[in-house]
């Protein structure tokens, strides 16, 4: 039985800061500006906000954001755990709060100096003091320290089992870059690449080369969630949360679930997909476009399979048939993704999914987008959301 909060919460505002490699400002500054942009987009003021959700990894406390922004009384604040797995989990929490009346208008935000501050590519170090230090200790002595190395390990086995080749990884990276080339807000605006250039990039952790890996960026993104009643009176047409789900599956670790009998898969996303489809009454055939979390090119392929756009091992053919492209079956990451727009931990992806449903993406597909999928990071507890035009 899936809890049903279909259409009980609506996204009414979105906002991004500029994306860069060196913001020169604090993460709190980025968070506040992204939130203000989302409020402006909706035509609401900080006084209208009574709830907030961000990532456990975010350094800007809700009350700091509230004080800087001028928010009054907040009756709901929560945090979502597990890195990029928290992206749509922020919507999950906001939608639950709004649907139950615990809050009326909730800001979801994420802001980071991911390039000029702490860089994920530098790996987990011996100085981490969190409760999962012991967990990372099973990998640090061997040098398995970085996101690329963990995902490389999964990718190598998945490619072995499915026969999918680098051709498919290239197509994911290339389609995404081509979208970014046309997006003035993207870091790689105006810069595309060809196969020879892709192949010539340095190896990061086999089989992942540089263009298979997302950027590290400075920036912030925010999404404003409110009730359907309130959303109807606002500046933008509402984007309803039709279905939202998350899952931590059996034998789950953060990024290193290598102890499952078969680890070339993302059972947590399969479960979240089933639940989100069940809640929304939609199926993969109803989804017109998607923003699929792309910290690495290969993880987009697994998610296409988990969300049932194709079967296990078929995602290579699916993308090589042009499915991700503007006129394809499922235009994906039309903002340029985290590979080529910016890495804002997936929340810039929620912003883009809202634009796709509104019809305002810089790379808006020619067909009407009734429903868009947006997902969170994988290899960790994860999830996704199905968005549609508010009735």
């Amino acid at each position, binding site marked *: 039985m899936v809890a049903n909060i279909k259409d009980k919460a609506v996204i009414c505002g979105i906002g991004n800061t500029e994306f860069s490699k*060196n913001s020169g400002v604090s993460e709190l500054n980025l968070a506040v500006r992204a939130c203000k942009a989302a409020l402006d987009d909706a035509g609401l003021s900080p006084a209208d906000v009574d709830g907030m959700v961000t990532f456990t990894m975010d350094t800007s406390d809700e009350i700091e954001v509230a004080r800087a922004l001028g928010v009054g009384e907040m009756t709901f604040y929560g945090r979502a755990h597990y890195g990029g797995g928290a992206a749509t989990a922020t919507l999950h929490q906001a939608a639950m709060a709004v649907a139950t009346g615990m809050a009326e208008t909730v800001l979801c935000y994420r802001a980071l100096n991911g390039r000029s*501050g702490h860089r994920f590519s530098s790996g987990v170090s011996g*100085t981490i003091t969190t409760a999962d230090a012991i967990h990372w200790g099973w990998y640090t002595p*061997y040098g398995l320290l970085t996101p690329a190395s963990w995902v490389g390990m*999964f990718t190598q086995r998945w490619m072995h089992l499915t026969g999918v080749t680098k051709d498919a990884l290239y197509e994911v990276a290339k389609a995404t870059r081509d979208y970014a080339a046309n997006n003035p807000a993207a870091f790689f605006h105006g810069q595309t690449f060809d196969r020879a250039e892709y192949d010539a990039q340095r190896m990061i952790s086999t089989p992942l080369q540089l263009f298979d890996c997302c950027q590290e960026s400075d920036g912030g993104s925010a999404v404003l969630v409110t009730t359907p009643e309130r959303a109807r009176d606002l500046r933008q047409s509402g984007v309803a949360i039709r279905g939202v789900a998350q899952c931590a599956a059996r034998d789950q670790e953060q990024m290193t679930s290598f102890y499952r009998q078969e680890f070339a898969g993302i059972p947590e996303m399969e479960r979240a997909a089933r639940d989100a489809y069940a809640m929304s009454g939609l199926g993969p055939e109803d989804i017109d476009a998607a923003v699929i979390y792309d910290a690495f090119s290969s993880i987009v392929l697994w998610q296409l399979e988990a969300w049932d756009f194709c079967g296990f091992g078929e995602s290579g053919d699916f993308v090589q048939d042009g499915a991700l492209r503007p006129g394809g079956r499922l235009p994906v990451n039309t903002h340029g993704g985290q590979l080529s727009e910016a890495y804002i931990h997936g929340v810039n992806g929620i912003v883009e999914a809202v634009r796709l449903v509104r019809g305002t993406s810089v790379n808006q597909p020619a067909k009407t987008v009734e429903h868009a999928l947006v997902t969170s990071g994988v290899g960790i507890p994860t999830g996704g959301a199905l968005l549609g035009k508010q009735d």
Partner: protein
Amino acid sequence: MNDEQQQAFEQCLYRFVGRQVCARTAAKDAVNEAMIRHWAETVGDANPAYTDAQWAARSARGRIIAPPAMMYSWNQEGFPVVAQGRAPDAQTELVDLFNENGFTGVLGTNVKQEYYKEIGLGERVHLEMVIDNISEQKATARGIGYFFETLASFSDQHGDLIGTQRFRVLKFIPPETAAAADGGGAEQDTLQTPTRIAAPRGHDNSWWWEACDQGQVLIQRCRNCQTLRHPPRPMCGECQSLDWDSIESCLEGELLSFTELHHPRIPGYPLPLICGVIRLREGVNLVANIVGAEEQALAIGMRVQGKVEQVDEKTMLPQFYPAENGVEK
């Protein structure tokens, strides 16, 4: 420095990334025979391409060229800096920030030059320099500190790139300062070879690492239902028993996946660095290094054999080698 102080410091620190140390500036002297000769004598480089005009005229180049490794010297400030100090720039500001926060130690750790174009007599070298990157805080053998790297770009009078030079510096809290701050005795300031990042040891895992230190890989076993589990945890997920013992693994297994780590390089880890997931014959998976073979010689499904080996001064780890019999069906 507590966490908050460190955060505040790093906020200021990382603002230096990307800052220009000097705009493109011409060297005081054009490339000339006298300075080349002094440089070649000092470093003991007798290559006639640099100093023998007649030889050079007959060579494929047809002219004397400046030693590429000398490119940094054309723009050196010289004696006024010794006498009067250096004019403030982004790098001196950065060093001041480090010093004010106790990172008074300094160690130049590497220089990397790349060459793109040769230059001859009469040409003029131009220098531009930026602070290219600053590392996260590192625990080094010298002490806690940060590496920063400047990137100097050398170009000729046409603006064509001659070469680049990356200079990496460690700014650290010297042990005597750290010890004084801790109220402890001064430690010996000896440079040690970096070792691997050790696993933190707690209630649930220290027994495993202690056995590893003694050369054994153990697998935790539920005493109630005999289910094996790795990595160790306090309760059996099958029967919820808290009672456990362990068995020793034979370290025979099948390679389920592997990845070779190329970037970033991490001090203390050998090259090539390959990690794999091994299905041990006992039935549980283990992550460990794969050694004794190039990556190209590895295949998923291959049989591997492990040994616990000392991999550096402080670390014992299971290391897996391709098994004699090769690939398993």
